[in-house]
């Protein structure tokens, strides 16, 4: 079993295998079906049921649609693979192991006979996913990502792609089969190329299909094909292929489109199956968030991120589809008592380690041919790129292509600004309301002073000073600092507050897991300001609250638990502007610091600010 499953290799273009296995060339099958049907009609004079003909017609239409969105990826001498376009402006999904040898730029063929230049956008070496962007059109044919959790064993599916690099005429091969298994786990090669929660199909996946789409019967993408089980029969399909699920892809899509070098997640704990078949913590790092939240050795894991955990594989499946940094609910049982905690997932790799893997300098994956790998990335000089994509690349640590992070940051910033409108917000923000127990609170935020009056005491800080010195009020992890950063972002815009990067998407609340709709994710901006680091959640396009800041996670120091501030809005509230929250909820670590219901929210013009002695330039 250890060696039974291997990544699809890149196919060398020079040699086409003689393919003794089952190559269900879909076009071939379709053609022969049509041919045979007509023969049957002629030979036997038998009627073919109308619904059969309709089903056949439907399939021909689906195949036509899905073929148009499928990409043949050419990685030069190193071979190539497949991909699928998922947006009209040319963002496409493929495998990490397909684009790795190509480096930054590749050529992509569509079935209209055209070849387009493409540039690397985001990389996920652990999950074997890459996002590239084709250039030259804004009306590319594209496919929709479906909900892969709705897929059932036995459902019809199509694999489409470029097996054995047959698509020399740019026409993809189509293979029809069924879903053989769902929620499969396939061991990684080293620490990367792990296939978790993947789909298993008997439609043909051969070398060269890597990165290509798996479609459902309706022609929506349910996965990206990437590996298959081989053992004794040579490297050809034996009816056992695996595809990365579309739900995993949806979880990572925001990070990948932000040009990130994406990492996967770990609990900081290992688990093992007990004698009773249940899953127990077999080891746990004391530095892990799970430990700090109370998980201990020998606790039984009941569920993670809203999915039941009955096997070790099930836990790996849930973990493997979630990006590092997300917060997830974890339910465990200890001595018969069930507890629920929220755990922030840690990255699997050190950042430098991941960068080396991505550049092919670290051999964590399947054996590569020696001497391969984009040697030009050794130097900080941007490698020579083809003209159409030359301006679409920017290098930066932690990113596979910082250019796209910049694009996302500018988009989110514009949305954030639009949510505030032209209103003059500079001045003292006076927020009054009550805590859950009915006692009052008052918050004042200005350019020069921030205060919070709580029944337990008053805290204040100067927003012009270093912010990491005063994570007040005590026990909140820095709620007042988070509010100061929030105000600065809304007033000045992220780019003038401090260094700000788009770092993908995340659910604003762990309760939204598993992610069912893209609008339950928020865009994430990370800002370094005054010695602290803040991650701002901005509601996605398409939702009713697009562009609104819905949360801020603030790290006063990298080691301490962050302060998690969430801004809620009562949909019935109509008197105040849309950006103003009606409730602020604050957590830190295992503590729910408070829920602040806002009764009144005033912006007092700056000139009447009595405490103001000097007005900082804005």
């Amino acid at each position: 079993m250890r060696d039974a499953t291997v990544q699809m290799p890149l196919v060398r273009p020079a040699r086409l295998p003689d393919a003794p296995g089952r190559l269900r060339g879909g076009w071939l099958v379709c053609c022969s079906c049509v041919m045979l049907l007509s023969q049957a009609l002629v030979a036997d004079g038998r009627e073919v049921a109308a619904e059969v003909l309709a089903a056949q017609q439907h399939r021909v239409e689906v195949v036509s649609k899905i073929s148009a969105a499928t990409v043949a990826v050419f990685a030069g001498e190193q071979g190539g693979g497949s991909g699928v376009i998922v947006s009209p402006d040319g963002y496409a999904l493929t495998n990490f192991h397909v684009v790795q040898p190509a480096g930054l730029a590749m050529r992509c063929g569509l079935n209209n006979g055209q070849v387009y230049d493409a540039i690397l956008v985001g990389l996920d070496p652990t999950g074997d996913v890459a996002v590239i962007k084709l250039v030259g059109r804004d009306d590319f044919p594209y496919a929709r990502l479906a909900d892969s959790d709705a897929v059932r064993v036995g459902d019809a599916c199509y694999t489409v792609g470029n097996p054995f690099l047959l698509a020399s005429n740019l026409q993809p091969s189509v293979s029809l089969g069924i879903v053989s298994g769902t929620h499969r786990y396939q061991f990684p090669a080293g620490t990367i190329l792990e296939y978790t929660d993947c789909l298993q199909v008997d439609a043909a996946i051969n070398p060269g299909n890597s990165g290509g789409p798996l479609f459902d019967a309706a022609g929506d993408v349910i996965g990206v094909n990437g590996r298959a089980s081989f053992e004794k029969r040579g490297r050809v399909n034996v009816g056992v292929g695996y595809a990365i699920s579309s739900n995993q892809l949806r979880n990572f899509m925001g990070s990948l489109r932000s040009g990130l070098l994406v990492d996967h997640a770990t609990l900081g704990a290992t688990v093992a199956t007990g004698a009773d078949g249940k899953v127990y913590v077999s080891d746990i790092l004391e530095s892990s968030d799970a430990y700090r939240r109370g998980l201990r050795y020998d606790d039984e894991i009941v569920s993670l991120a809203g999915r039941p955990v009955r096997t070790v594989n099930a836990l790996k499946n849930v973990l493997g589809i979630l990006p590092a940094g997300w917060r997830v609910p974890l339910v465990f049982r200890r001595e018969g008592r069930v507890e629920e905690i929220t755990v922030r997932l840690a990255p699997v790799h050190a950042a430098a380690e991941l960068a080396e893997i991505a550049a092919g300098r670290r051999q964590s994956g399947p054996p590569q041919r020696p001497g391969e790998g984009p040697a030009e990335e050794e130097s900080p000089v941007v490698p020579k790129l083809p003209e159409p994509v030359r301006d679409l690349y920017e290098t930066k640590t932690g990113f596979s292509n910082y250019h796209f992070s910049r694009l996302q940051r500018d988009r989110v910033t514009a949305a954030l600004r639009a949510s505030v409108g032209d209103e003059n917000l500079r001045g003292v923000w006076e927020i009054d309301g009550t805590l859950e127990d009915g006692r009052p609170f008052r918050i004042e935020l200005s350019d020069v002073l921030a205060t919070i009056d709580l029944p337990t005491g008053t805290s204040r800080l100067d927003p012009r000073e270093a912010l990491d010195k005063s994570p007040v009020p005590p026990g909140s992890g820095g709620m007042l600092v988070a509010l100061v950063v929030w105000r600065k972002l809304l007033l000045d815009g992220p780019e003038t507050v401090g260094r700000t990067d788009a770092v993908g998407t995340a659910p604003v609340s762990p309760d939204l897991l598993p992610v069912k709709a893209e609008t339950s994710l928020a865009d994430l901006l990370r800002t370094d300001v005054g010695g602290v680091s803040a991650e701002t959640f901005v509601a996605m396009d398409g939702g009713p609250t697009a562009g609104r800041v819905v949360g801020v996670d603030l790290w006063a120091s990298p080691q301490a638990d962050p302060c998690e501030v969430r801004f809620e809005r009562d949909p019935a509230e109509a008197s105040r502007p849309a950006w103003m929250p009606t409730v602020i909820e604050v957590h830190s670590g295992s503590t729910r610091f408070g829920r602040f219901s806002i009764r009144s929210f005033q912006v007092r013009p700056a000139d009447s600010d009595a405490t103001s002695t000097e007005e900082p330039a804005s």
Partner: protein
Amino acid sequence: MRTHTRSGESQCRLRTRQDWCVRLCVAAVLFAGVAGGETASASEAVIELAARTVVKIYGAGGFRGLESYQTGFLVSAEGHVMTAMSTVLDSGEIDCVLDDGRRYEASLLGIDPRREMALLKLDGEGLPFAPLDGGRLASRTAAAEADERTGEQNPPAAAGPLPHGDLAPPATRVYALSNLFGVAVGDERVSVQQGVVAAVVPLAARRGAYEAPYAGDVYLLDFTVNNPGSAGGLLVDVKGQPLGMLGKELRSSAAGIWLNYAIPLPEVAASFHALLTGESTEMEATAESFPFDTRLLGFLLVPDILEKTPPFVEAVIEATPAATAGLREDDLVVAVGSRSVTSCAAVAAELSRIDDGDAVRISVIRDGQIVDVNLGPRPPMRLPVAEEPVLGEGR
């Protein structure tokens, strides 16, 4: 699809000369129906019913390309499991994991070396099972019944007279369920593949190409079902009729081609009943009834004339594995592998229990010392030409 049909045609003796075109048409038409989604819920129901009867089996192995896992399926509500006879079962502890994740330790009730099947028993009751009497899986689906009423899409009717009694005809659409590559663990469902019966042919026609003791009819399938771990899996038609057991991996020594096949259900039933009643299927008895001819390894034992003739080597044939390995005349064989032997019959019986291609190691006493002799891979058994009809029950 067609490639395999043709290869099937060229390699095996077809018993009928039906129009392949018509059969493929039937397959194509039926296939179109499912892919169009009209019977999606029916197929889901059939797969669900079938999968509940399939058992993931774990035992010996896990090294040198020998898998430690395979497949079986429940054939009684009390926990009888039919599976393939293999080295996986050479373990003191055979674990069976049901579809819902329940784990049982199974006992080996007996093996059927001629069909290469084995009967396991786990301690259960009220379990879902695949009936061996020709019935469908537990509950009939409405869609299947509807199909029956119309009769239009029933493959047997469309494909003409049945060549093989109650064996399913070519063009029957089928699912294969198995623990291939050990990919499913715990309560994860076994893998399901879909394809078509390409032909019904006697495996005996392949003697010399595919070595297997079984010599009866098999379903040749148009998809790769006989993967590592698949052996013992369930073949079921798309309406929920169990059709047979997926066989062990077989590869033509001449052409290097792997066979995709399943042994029909009547054979499984016959084997089950024989094993259940203990009809000469005890492990020792079965092995002894198909003794291994030591000449295939290059040596002769002394004539077996006593009840327990001491297994002295009578002669070593030149240029054979035995000669190369240094076996000598007058060596006394005391063990085959790790099992001690005290008679010529026991040596032949033990050798017959080693799988084709597995290493044969014997221990002999020579000049008062125990010497280990490695005879290399065991050659295939030569079986007596198929005596009739153990295989014919149920037809």
